[in-house]
Each structure stands twice: as C-alpha cells, then as structure tokens.
C-alpha cells in the first residue's frame, strides 16, 4: 500500500479540502492505484538529466522582459465584482483576530 487513509486526511488538510468519510475511503483506493502506476518512474535512469520545468526555445535571454510602463489596472469595483461578500472596497471573510 502506497498511501493510507491517515495520509489521505493529512494531504486533504494540506490542500484545504474538506472530504467526507466516504470520499476518504474512495480516494485512498484510487490514489493508491494511481501511485502504483506512477512508481514506474523509478524504472528509468535519470542520472545527470536536468529537470524540465518549462518548455524552452532558443531565444535571447531578455526576450520576456518589457519596458516598465504603467497600464490602467482592473480597478477596485471590477476586482470585487465576483466576491461572495465585499464591503468598503475589500473582500470580506470570517473574523480571524479577536479584540
């Protein structure tokens, strides 16, 4: 077994994901099967191989740099328009500091 229900609960907490008891049982079995397949990666020798984080092409080193020019921002109202709760120009969330 590659992953236990205890680990599933731990990972769900890291991911801020509330899972039901049934989901924990199901994900334990499914993730275990998927991770078993992923262990295939151990078969291949990657000694001295550089990791690839991004697709790169031959380009000038500064190809992605641009002039630092101010452009109009989205604006407060537009940025808040999809908030489930907002007020006084801010996103509103549950109180985190008691006075």
């Amino acid at each position, binding site marked *: 077994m590659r992953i236990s229900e205890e680990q599933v609960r731990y990972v769900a907490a890291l991911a801020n994901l509330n899972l039901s008891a049934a989901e924990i049982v199901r994900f334990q079995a499914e993730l275990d*099967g998927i991770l078993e397949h992923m262990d295939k990666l151990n078969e291949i020798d990657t000694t001295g191989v550089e990791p690839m984080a991004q697709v790169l092409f031959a380009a000038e080193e500064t190809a992605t740099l641009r002039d630092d020019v101010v452009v109009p921002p989205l604006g407060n109202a537009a940025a808040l328009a999809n908030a489930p709760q907002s007020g006084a120009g801010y996103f509103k969330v549950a109180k985190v500091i008691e006075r």
Partner: protein
Amino acid sequence: MDIPSLTIDRVREGLVASRFSAVELTTEALRFAEAENPRTGAYLHFCPERAVAAARRVDGRLARGEDPGPLAGVPIAVKDVILTKGVRTTCGSRLLEHYIPPYDATAITRLESAGGIILGKTNCDEFAMGSSTENSAFGPVRNPVALDRVPGGSSGGSAAAVAQGTAVVALGSDTGGSIRQPASFCGVVGVTPTYGRVSRYGLTAFASSLDHIGPFARSVSDAATVLGVIAGRDPSDATSAAAPVPDYRAAIDGRVKGVKLGLPREYLKDLTSETGEVIERGVERLRGLGCEVREISLPATGYAIATYYVIATAEASSNLARYDGVRYTFRSESSGTLADLYRNTRGEGFGAECKRRIMLGTYVLSHGYYDAYYLKAQKVRTLIARDFEHAFQQVDAVVAPVSPFPAFKLGEKVDDPLAMYLSDIYTITGSLAGIPCMSVPSGATRAGLPVGLQILTRHFDEPGMFRLAGALEQQTS
C-alpha cells in the same frame, strides 16, 4: 442559409457579395445553434448581445469599405475555460457557476478584432480535467456522430459544436490532449500549437507549463486561419513566443513529396484493431503522395502517463488553490472560521475529478515525496522531449494515432480514473515536449465512428504540420 455548410471563405464571399449582412448571418446562426443545441448540449450558454454587437462592427467596416478582417462574420464557439468579459465563464464547475470575468482573454480580443463572432460558451470537463466531458458540473455532452457516445474531452463541447455545425470554428484548450482527442472522436480538425505560440492570458490555469489554446474547424484551412489570428507575442503572457507568425494557410500547398515521416513503434501496440487499420490507411495515403515513411522509436513513451499526471496535477493543485471562497463567487454556507470557509467551500465546490487531482498534486509536492515524484517526473519530461529531438533529426514529422480507440459510450469509463488517464497516452507526449500537434480526420470504423490521425512536428513548424494535414484531408474527402 445552410449554417452547417459554412466555411470561413463562404462567410466572407456572402458578406462581400452582400448576400447577407453579418447581423443577419449572426441572428440566423444563433437561432440555428439554440434550436440544435439540446441534441448534444455542446453549448452551456449563448451570448447573443455580444454576438450581434460584434456583427454590427463587421457590417460597419464593410459599409465603410474597410477590410472586415480574416474572420469577418464567422460564428465561433469558445470553450468555457477562456475568459469573456461580461459573459459568464464557468469552467464547467459549480464553483464558478455565476462567475462573470472582468476582462477578455487575449485570444478572444484577437478573434473579435479579426471580425469573428462569438456565439457562446461550450461545455467541458471541470477545469479541463478529463477525457470525456463527463466531469462537467452541468452534465455531459453527446457526440453528434453517435449520441450515446462521449465527444471526448476536455474540450468536448467545442468539438461537438463544430461537428454538429452550430459553429464554423471553435476554441478549445489542450493540456494533455484536450483538443486533439475530442477532434478525433467527433471527426473534426483540432490543433494544439507549439507551447507559447498562443497567449494563455485569460485561459483559466490548469497546468501552466502544459496549457495551450488552439482551434477546432471542419477543414485544415479554417483551422490554419484561426491559428494565424490568435497566435503571436502578448505582453500579458511572459511565456508567449516572440517568433513571427507565418501565413499558415499558404503552407497548405500540397507539396509533401519527399517529406520524411516517422511512425513510432511504441504507439502501435495498444491500438484497437479498427483504429489501427484507419491509421494504417492514413499513413498509406501519405506514402502514396510521395512521403517517405519509416519506423522510429520514442523509448520514454511508456513513462509519459506517469510523468504527465505527476506534473499536471502538481501544477493544478497550486493553480486551483485560488478557489477558496473569497474572490470567486461561490462560498460555502457553513463557514465558521476562515479555515472552515476555505475547506468547506472547496469540499462542496469541486467535483470528484478535480478533488482527485488536487489530492494527487498536493501529495507529489508534499514533504518527503517531492524528489521521488515531482523532480523525477520533471527529469523524465526532459527525456521525453529529447526523444522527439532525436526523432526530428531523422524525420520531418511524426505521425501517430490520437487515441487507442474511437469515441466510447457515455458512462463506460467514468468509474475507472486510471483507465481514463491511460487513454491519453498518444497525446500526452507531444504536450510534454511542447511541440505542435494536431488531429486530422483520417477515416472511420465500420460502425462509422471517426478516427483522427495525429501529426507532430518541430517547435514552431506549424506550417509543416498544416501542409501534411491539408494533403491528407484532400485524399480522405
């Protein structure tokens, strides 16, 4: 007006000859699409006001004698993961059911500047995670070719709309095959360009190092025209490529004699026999046109699924962290503390496949597993990219199947996530390497299910890819 038979050229000819105005065409296309849509559920919603406003601009340009643009009046469907200002963009997720983006994706801006008319937004797997469009919170899409079968995924709605004739062309997104596989299943052309060729600005992020926007069309030529419009450097996406955009359509010149094609032997062993036969016939047709076909090897292929599902889920777990109940419309009713608000919102909002991938991605990035899974997968990704580099020293293009089998029945694979992942094998390698790849219709099984042939070329060699696809299309139709 026969909407399903329209092409980009026919729309243009009709407008220039004043047989119809852009507003008339748009009104009729919307009427037709809304009437036909219930058969497949390809569209989630339409945006008639925006479409008619865009059509008025095209008519205005024509009236003033100006160039109306290369997509003038063309009815377009857009996958609902691509942001449209003021038009609901759900990503197929309960979490974003009421989300109205405050800006347009760059690809959208470019389509409309070129005279394109966006009719509406198409259904897809939630946050583009899936291979059948069954993971949408708003129900599945039916394949217009066989209504009891899936259209493929994740861009199933866009592929279905183009196949059904309710759009002339469409935009999809592809992270591991989400354009090519549904194109193959629905019998249309689907293009995943070189990574960075089309700006990702305004494409809802799934796996940033693998995400692409690309076109669907009923012809290679129309797909090439759309790509020409949306490609090019965009200051809003630092990974967009500065390389000049060639005339893709001009590349479709039939001159494929002597082109060297590689057939990867690793791709031919798990095919269902009928799919294999269609692919073989497609390759034979290319050989008949004077292409030289040889067998090649892409030895790291067997590790591609594991590599992809480590990297893509790791990136997804980071990208989906933003849906926490603070900024994006949906918030759980049961939220005591701020931590509860995050956890309950995400637990209630995400569907099963998104949760599975968030869990997997979080696990492979977590302490103690990062080196074993994530770093290892990144190294294997290098080997997969090298496989293609080596192949392109011997051949000009790689030809391959898109999927091991044609469109499967709704519900057939939904309970076996690993089996669903394994079916992505032939599309994932090109995605990991970031090379251009496309699916072009190559025939059908005896039951009439379409099968696409995949063509993969060097970085930025979309012209070579379109040339081959165009030649094959001529032979197939």
